[in-house]
């Protein structure tokens, strides 16, 4: 990336520049995380009356809990499907919006709107849209009764969740990907055209490879987002049901810790989840990050 001769050699200035941010992060991120890890080694009474050191017992119990693995499995499925859709759909939209057609400008405005809408209303509206009796799939249900029942069928509930997640994820990823496309110099496209590449070829051979940095950014952020931020949607639309079908790990942790006052159990699951996310991000950086060419 940047070689030795292109760096400043001050010793203390960088420390000064990073210090305030680091302090904030240590105090409000790492200390709470450490505290949570600490709790995972104890059986913690909620009100702090007494705590019993149990070593790795909590971890043993959680890792042998069928419910934990089921929640983990669902999270994995959600992560893969929802993340890929939340990157793929904005990608298609961005490629379309990059073209100079009449709809580009209004589309660019409208497609960012979900970012401003607060969580509580998103959930309610999506629950309504996918309602089997009065939603958009109601006619389907009238023809084949019972085919769409998110209140009873776990898969249908899952689909509703994915649809809502993609909806709220479109703005951010769309904007980033579009920015990437817009930054491709015109000359590159013209050169490719002169070489005889048709418009479809240009999309796949010129545009997509050149927005690898942005795609990487969105993928990394999306994967971690989908693991952790689906919470608000679950809480407003499905509440983890039906029959636990949409209880993702992050929701299970919240319910155990917040509603169940099971501080130790929640802390243990958080610790495990965090290790998983760290490994996942590290893997992404290791495999994909190296292949990204930043300079044009």
């Amino acid at each position, binding site marked *: 990336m940047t070689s030795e001769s292109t760096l400043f050699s001050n010793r203390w200035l960088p420390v000064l520049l990073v210090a305030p941010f680091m302090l904030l992060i240590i105090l409000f991120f790492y200390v709470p995380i450490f505290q949570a890890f600490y709790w995972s080694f104890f059986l913690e009474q909620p009100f702090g009356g007494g705590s*019993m050191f149990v070593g790795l017992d909590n971890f043993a119990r959680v890792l042998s809990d069928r419910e934990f693995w089921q929640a983990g499995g669902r999270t994995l499925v959600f992560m893969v499907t929802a993340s890929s859709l939340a990157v793929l759909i904005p990608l298609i939209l961005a490629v379309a919006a990059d073209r100079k057609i009449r709809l580009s400008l209004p589309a660019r405005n409208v497609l960012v709107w979900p970012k401003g809408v607060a969580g509580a209303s998103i959930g309610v509206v999506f629950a309504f849209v996918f309602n089997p009796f009065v939603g958009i799939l109601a006619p389907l249900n009238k023809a084949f009764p019972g085919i769409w029942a998110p209140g009873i069928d776990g898969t249908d509930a899952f689909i509703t969740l994915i649809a809502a997640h993609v909806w709220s994820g479109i703005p951010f990823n769309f904007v980033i990907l579009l920015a990437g496309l817009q930054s491709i110099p015109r000359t590159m496209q013209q050169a490719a055209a002169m070489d005889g590449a048709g418009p479809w070829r240009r999309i796949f051979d010129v545009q997509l490879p050149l927005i690898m940095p942005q795609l990487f950014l969105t993928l990394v952020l999306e994967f971690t987002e989908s693991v952790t931020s689906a919470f608000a949607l679950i809480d407003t639309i499905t509440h983890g049901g039906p029959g636990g079908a949409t209880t993702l790990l992050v929701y299970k942790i919240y319910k155990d810790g917040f509603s169940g006052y099971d501080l130790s159990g929640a802390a243990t699951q958080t610790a495990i989840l965090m290790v998983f996310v760290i490994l996942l991000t590290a893997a992404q950086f290791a495999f994909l990050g190296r292949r990204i060419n930043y300079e044009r």
Partner: protein
Amino acid sequence: MKISILAAAAAVMAGACSAQAANIEFWYGNTGPVETAIKAQCDAFNAAQTQHKVTCVGQGSYEVSMQKAIAAYRAKNHPVLIQFFDAGTLDLMLSNAVVPVQEILPDVKWNSYIAGARAYYETSGGKLFAQPYNASTLLFYTNRTELEKAGVTQTPTTWEEVIDAARKLKAAGHACPFVTDGDTWRVLEQFSARHGLPIASRHNGYDGLDAEYVFNTTFVAKHLQNLVDWRKEGLVRLNADTKAGNYTAAFNAGECAMMEGSSGSYAASTKAFDGKYQITVNMAPMYKGYERHNTLVGGASIYVMKGHDQAEVDGAKAFLDFLRKPEQQMAFTAATGYVPVTNDVLEAINKSGDAKAAKYATAAIGIESMNQPPTADSRGIRLGFYVQFREIFMEETQKAYAGQQTMQVSLDNAKKRGDELLRRFEQTYKGVKLP
């Protein structure tokens, strides 16, 4: 002596105020119209006297309120009064963070509290831990207009009659004779209590932390299996089967004709029925051959937290006394539909001449339902990690309704998972005695 920035500042400020007056904080969890009523009571308290001032802070939900109380208690800046709901009773009792109200207010006539409300929040020795505040219980609502259309003239009182009426409704083309959400409180707890059945051993945990769940072996298992069968027959509908998506909304819209619901639903139902349907409200149905016992009290109660000075405790006591006054309870009942908790309030309502008004309709029935003869198993729930258990029960029974497994398997699973929770709870509080 501790060097404490805050303590120093507080000392300076405290010196400037009179010794008796106390500013106390009360954390509650309700939202909506109940919150409005609570705030009105706080304002009334402040207006009625000048010695103490209460600041009532709404936390948005019972769970958030409790979490904040936990964190605040650990950081030593917790309020003196906190409202918390039924399922969290054991956590608070074992926390060593609260003072039993009977201890700080020994002279109050605690016996005037309705038996059903008392029993939930008192120790097995009979000492009241928390003051019942917003109480509800399970009642049975029917849409009389719809029932009569199908030829049912008498409001059903037993489950057999309910199903009979449901069959008549179905025959008349009604899509939703009876609706329920399958909620643990309604179909397990209230059912078991009024039929005199235990949910767990050791009298639902009152006698010790080594209790075990037994509901999968009692008659309630048969009742739940009945619900599955009746749903297949089209007599019973769940939330997800209704157009409205929610059992009370479906009942209020006239979509469903009968429901078991909290006494708190009454206000919204009558408002929705106005001019269109006639509503009836009675005690929850029983199976033939079972003696009726009391239903459990739902809602929440108020706890006094430790770690406050005498002035604040005095303020807390004054506020609790204020809330207990019959006029205050009447106003609260009228505004929210919650049931009054002391017996003298019923007399006050009758004397007021407004006894037949809609706003007091659930008071008499609710009190009657909670005053039925108790058993050792109908006092309440004293089980650890109970909130999580309620979720587990819902999760497992939902699978049964969806046809993924039989109801008995669901109940056995729920028992197994619930027992794991109980054992871990017992381990967390090893050596702590149940009060």
